[in-house]
């Protein structure tokens, strides 16, 4: 996600860390690198300037330079300032005093409003709400159909009308429909528009008047360049934004827009879209993102993800198995599959401190195909072989290779990996986890 930026900034700080004492020149050189990295990440020029000026001022105070660990001090300051720019604390959606709460999505064309509308509806339903989707994009061909299809997939009601109706009228009718359905949230998908298109910006104001929304959310493509801030400013001026959703964060966009918009407009980022699937929406945690940018990893998100996909009882069982050394190939496979559920290997490594710089070296999809291969191999074994891998000899190896469409070498490799995992787990259990990370590297 932020690999390149992370890599650059970590490099800067590594160099800084090698020095026992810092001079003003050292700080300036480090900040010059930070400036380059931020600009390459599409952070707004104005924001970059203010940022580096602020950091410089704080860094050049005597106690920082004269402290025993000046580099750490500088990192801490950069981190704090970064968190401040990224938006301080996490912000949630604000419900209305009287239901239904009303949310409208606005933005440029192609930012991902329709997909985000569906993702938000799913998110709200999962937290116990009754969402109603409203198709008020009457202009883009098949936009209404798209929302209907998504609503059907999720089994969430969609209010849609003839595209000849004005979006404001559709919203009025949607409010009545929400009453009938006892919906607690209305999510309105509006058409994409340029922030300089007077007619369409006026129409958006009409929709707002009809809907009286509690949340007006700007959907911003993470790949947007320097223009992002101007777009956000223009929308904010016309309809008063209450939040932002950053989409397409699952690519390699460095998302400098995220750093910029909050800082310039004061509008908080509320969610990030991280995939094409309807559940690929993550709450936005500024502090976590800042530490990810600085290459400090994001263990909190990783732990939460692990909790969401892993069955606690099952985890305890596995733990017991490890302790009693009965951890077998079936368990190994299951562990791999669970890890897979948490995201791609790259995404996971991104969140582990010290590993994010390795992510770049992993072509995406490779780990997926490897998990598949492991699956095929394990499924080609007899239950006895899975529990007692030491049984596998040359002839069995050939049979398994044939059955799984792999080679005997692949089987060997898997068995080696398995033995290593077994060893690693025993060490973990014995409380020797301290050295784990260095071993993984």
């Amino acid at each position: 996600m932020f690999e390149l930026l992370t890599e650059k900034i970590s490099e800067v700080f590594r160099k800084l860390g090698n020095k026992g004492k810092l001079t003003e020149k050292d700080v300036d050189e480090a900040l010059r690198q930070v400036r380059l990295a931020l600009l390459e990440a599409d952070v707004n020029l104005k924001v970059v300037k203010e940022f580096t000026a602020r950091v410089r001022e704080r860094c050049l105070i005597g106690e920082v330079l004269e402290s025993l660990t000046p580099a750490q001090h500088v990192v801490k300051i950069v981190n704090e300032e970064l968190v401040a720019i990224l938006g301080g604390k996490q912000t949630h959606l604000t419900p209305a005093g009287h239901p239904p709460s009303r949310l409208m999505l606005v933005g440029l064309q192609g930012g991902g409003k329709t997909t985000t509308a569906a993702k938000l509806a799913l998110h709200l339903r999962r937290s116990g709400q009754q969402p109603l989707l409203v198709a008020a994009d009457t202009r883009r061909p098949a936009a209404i159909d798209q929302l209907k299809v998504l609503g059907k997939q999720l089994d969430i009601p969609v209010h849609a009308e003839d595209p000849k109706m004005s979006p404001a009228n559709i919203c009025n009718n949607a409010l009545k429909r929400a009453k009938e359905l006892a919906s607690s949230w209305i999510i309105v998908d509006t058409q994409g528009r340029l922030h300089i298109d007077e007619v369409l910006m006026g129409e958006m104001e009409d929709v707002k008047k009809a809907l009286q929304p509690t949340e007006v959310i700007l959907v911003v493509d993470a790949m947007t360049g320097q223009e992002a801030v101007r777009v956000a400013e223009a929308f904010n001026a016309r309809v008063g934004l209450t939040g932002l959703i950053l989409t397409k964060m699952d690519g390699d966009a460095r998302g400098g827009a995220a750093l910029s918009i909050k800082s310039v407009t004061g509008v908080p980022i509320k969610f990030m879209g991280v995939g094409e699937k309807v559940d690929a929406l993550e709450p936005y945690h500024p502090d976590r993102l800042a530490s990810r940018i600085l290459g400090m990893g994001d263990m909190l998100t990783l732990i939460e993800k692990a909790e969401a996909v892993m069955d606690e009882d099952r985890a305890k069982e596995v733990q017991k198995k490890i302790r009693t050394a009965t951890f077998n190939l079936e368990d190994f496979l299951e562990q791999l599959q669970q890890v897979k559920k948490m995201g791609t290997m790259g995404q996971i490594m991104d969140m582990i401190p010290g590993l994010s710089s390795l992510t770049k070296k992993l072509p995406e999809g490779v780990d997926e195909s490897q998990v598949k291969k492991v699956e095929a191999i394990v499924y080609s074994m007899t239950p006895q072989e899975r529990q007692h891998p030491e049984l596998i000899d040359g002839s069995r190896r050939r049979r398994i290779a044939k059955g799984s469409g792999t080679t005997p070498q692949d089987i060997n490799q898997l068995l080696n990996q398995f033995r290593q995992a077994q060893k690693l787990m025993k060490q973990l259990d014995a409380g020797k986890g301290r050295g784990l990370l260095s071993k993984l590297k």
Partner: protein
Amino acid sequence: MFKIFRRRKTEEAVKRSKDTWFSKISRLFERDTLDQDTWDQLEELLISADVGLVTTEKLIHKLRRRVDKEKITQPEQAREVLKEEIVAILNPDGRSTGQSYPRIVLIVGVNGSGKTTTIAKLARSYKEDGRAVLLAAADTFRAAAIDQLKWWGDKVGVDVISHQAGADPGAVVFDAIQAAKHRQIDVIIVDTAGRLHTKFNLMEELKKVKRVAQRVDAAIPQQTLLVLDATTGQNGLSQARHFTEAVNVDGIVLTKLDGTAKGGIVLAISDQMNIPIEYIGTGEQVDDLAPFEPRDFVEAVLS
């Protein structure tokens, strides 16, 4: 005559940008002297237009060297040099069009860059040139993408070959080429699903679409166009790199240039990857597409 028309289109397209950003660049050279301040401000303006730091520094470096070497003192002259250097980056002679017919035009890009709309515009432009056009709805992934293409097909008056949602995109292309042979089609335009360039499996799928087309009839030349949103920042470079690795991008269509975005990223892409810009999309109407003429473009923005 056509050239004049084209030029007018390009000028219209950049007019809005010209009024703000480009006029600032122009104004930089309306002062009496060239000094460090000029270069610093030029750097800021280029970065604000998403040209990126690498290309910006390179451009300014070249400009300053020529200013020194040719002993240029008049800002006016420096502006002419800047124009020349930008045109040189945009490689005016490297365009990939002008191939023979029939041909297959494969449209690729990330989600939401404007592929389907661009296809409608391209279809219309080919049709106006008297070419028989067929569209292939190979975006079988996004909800209602097929409907969207059919809607445009109706509007422009060209046939659309489609399968069901979720079908194999390669199969759609296969059928489209077969149909094209029977119907004496000149241009098959293939709509593909938007995909982030970092998604391994989706890029593999795209390679397959290209392979299928090649296998059906290797004699039909293929042109791959990358659709790029003008608001894209430095990530555009990564997009161009990944799509080129996968399906060898021949040219770029820069869309949504009707906003205030400058699309400066194409300068970086031209500079670092040498991929020409073929068309620019200038609005939501079906005839809002113009062939890109680097000289006209630069002339229009910096005159």
